[in-house]
């Protein structure tokens, strides 16, 4: 992919006496270079001194990627709305499901077809906030559409990240109403399992717990989701365990 060149004048720090060895190297004010995510080593010594890519780097990049995806998704939605208002032909989205008119559809991200089990689970889970009152069930578990949306966003963010980074497809969770108006996402893929609970109060963090049945005392994960981060490393790692092999 071609990137817009940037003037090296804004980046370069001249070191007197250092020769590049390139006879056709242009004067600094005329040079252009391509922006890179990491500094490109120029020699063997540079390679040995180059910082290793850490797990934190990977998580940071994953978070940035998810954020970019979210922005693009929003922009596409806005474009679609504008086109609809002008009564022009609608854009053809690569959706895993046909368009639905209900408001819950808007929360569905543009999931790849490979993630259709997750898309199907999301579609089927709309019943948990659309369910009509059942007089035989006075203790029925209920949740709001808003809480369901937050849960689905967490699910799709993590499913897409696992798919993009590891080309793995997470199993579809059981999506159900939980206690006190919360929403549960429950995965079982022996020997691994995970329960993630999204509370009704949007100011409270989602919590999760999972373990490995073959070694439950020492191989487990638990914690609270940081609302400022789209992806939680603990959840991400456990969902990768549950991915289809």
């Amino acid at each position: 992919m071609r990137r817009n060149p940037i003037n090296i004048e804004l980046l370069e720090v001249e070191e007197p006496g250092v020769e590049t060895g390139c006879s056709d190297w242009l004067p600094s004010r005329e040079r252009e270079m391509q922006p890179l995510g990491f500094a490109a080593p120029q020699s063997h010594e540079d390679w040995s001194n180059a910082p290793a890519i850490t797990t934190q780097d990977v998580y940071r990049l994953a978070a940035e990627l998810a954020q970019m995806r979210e922005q693009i998704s929003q922009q596409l939605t806005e474009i679609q709305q504008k086109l609809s208002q002008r009564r022009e032909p609608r854009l053809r989205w690569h959706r895993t499901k046909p368009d639905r008119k209900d408001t819950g559809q808007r929360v569905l991200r543009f999931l790849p077809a490979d993630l259709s089990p997750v898309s199907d689970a999301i579609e089927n889970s709309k019943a948990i906030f659309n369910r009509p009152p059942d007089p035989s069930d006075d203790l029925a578990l209920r949740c709001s559409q808003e809480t369901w949306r937050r849960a689905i966003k967490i699910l799709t963010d993590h499913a897409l990240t696992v798919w993009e980074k590891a080309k793995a497809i997470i199993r579809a969770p059981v999506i159900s109403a939980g206690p006190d108006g919360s929403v549960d996402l429950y995965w079982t893929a022996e020997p691994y399992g995970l329960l993630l609970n999204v509370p009704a109060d949007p100011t409270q963090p989602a919590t999760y717990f999972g373990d490995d049945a073959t070694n439950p005392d020492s191989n487990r994960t638990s914690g609270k989701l940081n609302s400022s981060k789209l992806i939680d490393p603990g959840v991400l790692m456990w969902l990768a365990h549950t991915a289809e092999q």
Partner: protein
Amino acid sequence: MSEPWPIEQIPDADLLFMRVHRNDIQNGQPIPGVFKNRGEGEQEGMSTDWSSYSTAEQTKLRATKPAWRGGVIQMGVGHVRKIPRQTVEHAPLLVNRAHTNVKGPKSGSVEGTQARYLFMKVWRWAIRYEGDASASTAA
């Protein structure tokens, strides 16, 4: 209301029975949300029946709504007590000597989520719900 029945100690080897409404069953299993507390104060807890004074069928028949449909699950008392911060307390009612509360957090915290995750590992069907046509007792 505990009188007139005495409160007794429940052995680890006994069972607890609990009704599960058909709306709370997915893919033939109860959803994690069925493990929740009811009531307030001293009475707050997950309502179950102790096998010493109730059968699974009697627990099913205690559903107050005539149109109620669902199954009954069972949990070993010892297994429940191994779940962190969960306690099993006999709380007999005038009309139900078997009534037992499972106390401890089940929502709003990591501990609550952990507890419900672990409840999902210890339940078994006592009376499986198989639709409105029939129901059978599990082995």
